């Protein structure tokens, strides 16, 4: 049976992903030798009683407070964006849908820009104001888009997409105005919009973790119904899917996940668009496999990109640039190689 053949795919992917996390934790600019790094990991995280002589406190701190949280945050962000992308592509039945189509990113960017310009850095719950403003911006935007496109109790998908584009363009323009009026903050805003995992630590991870876990669990629970909605909205109604409720659920879950992630990392493009497509091309359109595989590969993809971002040059490259730079051509390659399947038959 085919079902049996596919059961190994998820555990195998998880193993690959753990291997990638491990390797990426060991790579970096600071020269910490391979055995040393292993000893630190074993000592710090598995609490093994290992002889730590000859390893500097600095090395331990780099692994514990810099590299590992970065890898974990990278995984969380990549996984979140990919799963949200899969969910959005499902309810919109549109190959161009990604977590940002409805303007989450523009809202967050505008919020962040305001925070940066006002130097609103006062920490609330271990977080700075920019992050909070970005989160608020993202949520308000989705609320606005949703209410614009609502017709009675229904939310037509096409209206939703169009109002998303309209609102998001307006917000982007507003952000440009802010940038022109505040030239001294331009660089900082630009860097924020390109996304980076630099300088983030365990506190940010703890902040996003509950939202991400909650949202992703909610999205996973929609798997079967998302499959059905892919075959048409009317059909879904006829098969007993509460389409409007499903849309709201996916919209809400995706927004909470992507907003919390990008308010911490800035806008990391392409992961949410490409990863679900790649997984769909390889493993088929069923969300029961699509969702977990997107999660694993989205996470792994972002970790690799981030490792490249901090390793290939002497300075830090925003990870959003790397994701687009690697993801785009790879996607094109896959499209050419597998002409049929998914949307591209």
């Amino acid at each position, binding site marked *: 049976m*085919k079902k049996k053949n596919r059961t190994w795919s998820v555990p195998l992917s998880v193993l690959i992903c753990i291997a990638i996390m491990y390797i990426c934790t060991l790579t970096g600019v600071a020269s910490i030798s391979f055995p040393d790094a292993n000893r630190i990991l074993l000592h710090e995280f598995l609490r093994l009683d290992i002889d730590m002589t000859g390893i500097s406190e600095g090395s331990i701190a780099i692994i514990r407070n810099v590299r590992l949280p970065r890898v974990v945050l990278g995984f969380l962000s990549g996984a979140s964006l990919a799963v949200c992308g899969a969910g959005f592509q499902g309810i919109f*039945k549109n190959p161009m849908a990604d977590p940002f189509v409805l303007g989450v990113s523009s809202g967050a960017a505008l919020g962040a820009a305001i925070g940066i310009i006002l130097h609103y850095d006062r920490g609330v719950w271990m977080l700075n104001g920019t992050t909070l403003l970005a989160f608020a911006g993202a949520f308000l935007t989705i609320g606005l888009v949703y209410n614009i496109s609502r017709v009675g109790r229904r939310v037509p998908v096409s209206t939703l997409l169009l109002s998303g584009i309209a609102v998001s363009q307006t917000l982007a323009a507003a952000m440009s105005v802010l940038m022109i009026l505040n030239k001294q903050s331009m660089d900082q805003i630009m860097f924020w919009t390109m996304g980076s995992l630099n300088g983030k630590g365990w506190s940010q991870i703890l902040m996003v973790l509950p939202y991400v876990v909650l949202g992703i669990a909610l999205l996973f*629970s929609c798997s*079967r*119904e998302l*499959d*059905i909605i*892919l*075959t*048409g909205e*009317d*059909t879904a*109604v*006829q*098969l*007993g*899917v*509460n*389409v409007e409720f499903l849309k709201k659920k996916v919209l809400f879950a995706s927004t909470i996940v992507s907003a919390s992630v990008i308010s911490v990392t800035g806008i990391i493009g392409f992961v949410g668009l490409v990863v679900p497509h790649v997984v*769909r091309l390889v493993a*088929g*359109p*069923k969300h029961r496999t699509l969702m977990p595989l997107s999660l694993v590969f989205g996470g792994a993809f972002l970790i690799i990109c981030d490792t490249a971002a901090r390793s290939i040059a002497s300075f830090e490259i925003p990870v959003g640039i790397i994701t687009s730079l690697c993801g785009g051509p790879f996607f094109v390659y896959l499209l050419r190689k597998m002409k049929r*399947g*998914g*949307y591209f*038959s």
Partner: protein
Amino acid sequence: MNTEILSLKHVAAGYGSREVLTDVTLSVREGEFAGLIGSNGAGKSTLIKCVFGLIPLRRGALSICGRENAALKSRERARLAAVVPQSYHVEYDFTVEDIVMMGRNPYLSLRRRESPEDYEIVENAMKLTNTEQFRDRFYNELSGGERQRVILARAIAQKPRLLLLDEPTSSLDVHHQIEVMELITRLNQEEHIAVLAVLHDINMASRFCQRMIMLQEGRVFADGTPSEVINRQNMESLYQMKLMIHKNPLFHKPEIVPIRVMEEEKASLRQHIHVICGANGAGKLLEELDARGYQVTAGVVNQESGDWDICQELGIPCVAIAPFTPVTESDQTLNLKMMETADIILVADMPFGESNLNNLSGLEDMPGRIYFHKNALSNDHTHGALVKRLQELGARKKITYIGDHDAFLDLLKKEEA
């Protein structure tokens, strides 16, 4: 057997300012196979959509299995009724089994995942529709007929009490049309699922449905057995064209034969043409002469023959006798009386025997010109009597021999020009 599965009472619904259904009252009972017919835009598909709550009702009440439709959750409704659309395209690579399993959705939830029982139901649905051999193939790689069977399997997996079909065969060839209809009939009879099918093809509906409901201008225009619904008045109001209704000899169900929509060019000389026929060969000619505006009469025709049917359908006056009885002197007297005023007398392509040779007696005294279809001579069973009769007749009056009916029509046209 008499539980009401679907009931509509004074239902009105529509899109925007246009009200498609104005006042529909109908019910489908347990075990029934009802066909819904009506011209384009009569509201057949709208009615199906109403049942699924895709369009809200403006007035009236709709209930499924005795439960108010608006109060049903979509999950509950999907357990009671399933839909098979016209044709159904899926852009994604779902396998046939995936698609059929979707039919189990109304029974599944977070707490209740697919159980062995669900797999068994899916398995049976695929067996019943003969689709299990391509369970692992992608749905979008199947042919139209195969897809329709898969969608039927999905509907069966819903374990519904009512099956709604929206022109399920309109995109299929004859083989697959019949296959799908036979399958639906089996479901109706073996699984006791009530069926309401929107059908374009009246003959298909007549053949397979026990009951037909005709919608016209947003209301039920006729409702009854095929023989009750398929009559000239209903059909002409439905199709706005000239057509013929006869009983299909194989299925004993009424059947329509569409004849023409556009009016034939009218003949300028309103001549009276009498056609001597009586078997099955002159139907098309009678129709065309009638359509061109000639005054047509016929005789002596045997009842129940094809020519007789057409005379009845088109209202052509004719002298008729009981089937398989000979043409007697008195029959021929009536026939001669009818052709007295005829400008033209045509002996159509018909077989001649001892019993109907009388058709040709007395023609020499008629004023009209005589035309004779040559092919009648190859169907001569009179052992020479026909040829002898023609010689006698030919000696006293000119007979024009024609090769076929079209040549005769051309001759008439030329004459007019």
